[in-house]
């Protein structure tokens, strides 16, 4: 009897530990790992009300609702990519704090390379136009210079 009870108690321990480890955030109960996933997703999404904050940081009502939606989907096992798509489908690519590479953003992503190319061009043109170094003095010229500098 005692042994049975002990075994039962032992069975409960991991369950209890798990129950304590669950966290509640924005009305959704989830495991720390799921919460971590949700935070990673939320910190990559722009809050549309205060546009320089992420959904994770913002205290706006809409951001809170979106955090709830992200967590619900995480608990349901929806892949990250699909959750991102859910947001982009509704709010456009502006919702992504890191804009994706697309025809719309090609110029944005190419700009450092364009700047580098322009820099090289300017440098190259400047070098090409610079006067050629003067030829070294001949012996006669050197003698005259020494004479003059005496």
């Amino acid at each position, binding site marked *: 009897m005692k042994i049975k009870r002990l075994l039962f108690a032992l069975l409960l321990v991991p369950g209890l530990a798990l129950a304590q480890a669950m966290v509640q955030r924005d009305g959704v109960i989830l495991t720390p790992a799921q919460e971590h996933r949700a935070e990673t997703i939320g910190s990559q999404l722009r809050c*549309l*009300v205060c546009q320089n904050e992420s959904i994770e940081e913002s205290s706006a009502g*809409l951001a809170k*609702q*979106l955090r709830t939606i992200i967590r619900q989907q995480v608990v349901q096992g929806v892949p990250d990519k699909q959750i991102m798509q859910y947001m982009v489908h*509704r*709010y*456009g690519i*502006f919702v992504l704090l890191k804009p994706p590479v697309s025809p719309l953003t090609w110029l944005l992503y190419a700009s450092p390379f364009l700047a580098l190319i322009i820099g090289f061009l300017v440098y190259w043109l400047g070098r090409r*136009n610079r006067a050629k170094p003067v030829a070294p003095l001949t012996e006669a010229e050197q003698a005259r210079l020494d004479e003059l500098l005496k």
Partner: protein
Amino acid sequence: MSPLRRRLLFGVPLAMAAVGGVGFYTILRRMQDNDYNPHTLPSPLIGKHPPTFALPGAPGFQGFSNTDLLSPPKPMLVNWFASWCAPCQEEAPMLHKLAASGITIWGIAYEDTPDALAAYLQNFGNPYQRLATDESGLTAINWGVYGVPETYFIDKTGIVRLRYPGALTKEVVQNRLMPLFKQYS
């Protein structure tokens, strides 16, 4: 230094500064004229039908669903607003003007309570032919609404042609809405 080089060295930065100046002036000017808002987001709904939804009517009003917006007899507006939203109160007179000129406006009250909504309509009047309520705000998320007021122009085939976030001003109506009503009438 050749004269051309000297002219380029002085002229190019000067020209760049001038272009930048004109650009900033135009932006600031248009912001002052309520013609341009840098926080405005383009809506992914443009060129599409509104997402599936069915919202109940406010007390005494008929609600509507996405199927009711499929083929309106003429282009119309869907206006998201809330009784607690100050810019909504600002744009109320403009909505009345539009309604009086024969434009169909359907409203959706965003995260509102029946009492507050009734008081709002009493104070600011009702320009809406139908008035639905989105108490949870979940339909708003599906529409991509990120703040009230927002106004959607829907053509006769039920397709969204414009989303304007913010209060409708005289300039917005003249420069953005009226051309659309002409184009899609």
